């Protein structure tokens, strides 16, 4: 464990060093973030121009939903996204061979070696915006609500990681599908709708087969106390199960991996 912590610390330092080369993009990232928030908030305005009330959600709560989806996304981007984007190159250029020779878990190294420090600044920006929105609309968050949201947010990130790993395992089999991470990138933003207005079948689909509700919706619903007790049990169970399956699949693929040059 100590060894892994030491390696992780080194990787963070390396991340800071790499990201310092992208200072201009970090500045542009703030502008992009501003545009993203503005478009998302205008979308909610558009929704409320068509409907007086979305059952169970006020306009202000929908603002928070949008921002929390983004926050959860940024956490994932900060910790893992760079690694999954790099996975195709890692597997198909032969660099994975080199990784297998290291005295460390290939899974740990392959999914933690790139830490996007840039995203940390955007996480801070997201949190600040949420606080400003809460202050502006006099929304009051309880301590238990914040704890519940953090708990569901954590499991949401676990689910994102698990699905990304599961899908990236396909790269061992097919060299043409490196763009698979773009699909996940799009899906991660699909949690920003109040799913409770959907009938039963689409709701179940978006919670199990295509679990976009994990990507911010559950965390926000938990923050406002809109979830039943069963969901608090179901979310970690399903996330853990998918994570377990993805790790099993990864191990199987690594076992059968026969080098890019073979």
């Amino acid at each position, binding site marked *: 464990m100590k060894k892994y912590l030491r390696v992780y610390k080194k990787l963070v330092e390396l991340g800071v060093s790499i990201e310092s080369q992208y200072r201009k993009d970090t500045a542009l990232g703030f502008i992009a973030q501003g545009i993203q928030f503005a478009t998302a908030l205008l*979308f909610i305005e558009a929704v409320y121009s068509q409907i007086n009330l979305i059952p169970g959600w006020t306009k202000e709560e929908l603002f928070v939903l949008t921002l929390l989806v983004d926050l959860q996304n940024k956490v994932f981007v900060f910790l893992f996204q760079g690694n999954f984007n790099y996975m195709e190159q890692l597997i198909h250029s032969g660099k994975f061979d080199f990784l297998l020779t290291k005295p460390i878990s290939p899974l740990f190294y392959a999914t933690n070696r790139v830490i996007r420090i840039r995203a940390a600044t955007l996480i801070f920006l997201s949190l600040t915006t949420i606080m400003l929105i809460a202050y502006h609309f006099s929304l009051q968050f309880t301590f238990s609500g914040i704890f519940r949201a953090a708990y569901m947010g954590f499991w949401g990130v676990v689910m994102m990681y698990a699905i990304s790993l599961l899908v990236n395992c396909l790269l061992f089999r097919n060299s043409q599908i490196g763009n698979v991470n773009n699909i996940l990138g799009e899906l991660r933003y699909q949690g920003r709708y109040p799913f409770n*207005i959907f009938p039963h079948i689409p709701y179940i689909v978006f919670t199990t087969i295509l679990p976009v509700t994990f990507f911010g919706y559950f965390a926000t619903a938990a923050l406002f106390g809109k979830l039943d007790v069963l969901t608090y049990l179901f979310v970690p169970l399903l996330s853990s199960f998918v994570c377990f399956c993805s790790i099993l699949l990864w191990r199987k693929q690594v076992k059968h991996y026969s080098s890019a040059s073979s």
Partner: protein
Amino acid sequence: MKAYIRMVGISVKQGLEFRARIFMWLLVHLSAFTVVPFFWVYVLFLQPNVEYTPEKIATYYVLIVLVSCFSASNIGNRIEEDILEGGIVGLMVKPVSYVKYRFALFLGGKVVPSTIVIVLFGLARLLFPTYILLPTSFVHGVFFVLFVCVASTITFFLDVLVSLGAFWWGRTPALGQSLVWLRGLFGGQFAPLVFYPAAIVSLAKVLPFQFLYAIPANVYLGEYDITTVYHLLVGGVIWIMALALMATFIWKKGIRTYDSPSQ
């Protein structure tokens, strides 16, 4: 001209060779619409709207997906790579224009995905005839096809413009991401433009983004009379020319300041 036609051919062959990759790109564009059409259909079921029925909004989104798959381009990433890794140096000594070369590859790259999308659209229409309306008239259908071509060309030039930023700023995913959000808002991808506040609608009218999704879809749905459609088409062509000129201007400026990474 012959060289560019040959490049279109090469790009078509690439599409046939890398079928899995093409299929994945189609899924990328479809995944952006996983929830939003359902969301609007349920919102309009909860509170019916005179202008937009659930059937109409469903058709609107199917059309947006269709246009998105036709016009989507990954060309920005390629240009950025060429600039940053010195790929353009090799092309600069050849008797071809770099932007035209990329456009030829872009056009060729559309053939295979477009065929798949047309087949999928036909299937969807057969399976859900209530939720996928036919064009208001044959003329509107023909104009829809023309507007899809306009949307594709505008998308191409917007991507080129953003990727040319690599001459000065290096790799800039943030710029590309901003373009995605602006396209979504002002193009009518997130919601039909008429749903937005008046100020946004006015602003959208002076930007090129509405040609990407909202106008083609509204032409198909018969929201405009034929005279307006003509005017809009002229507007679209003017935007293409303006963006092409801007791209040429920025390209020339960038090339003057360019230092190949190998130098």
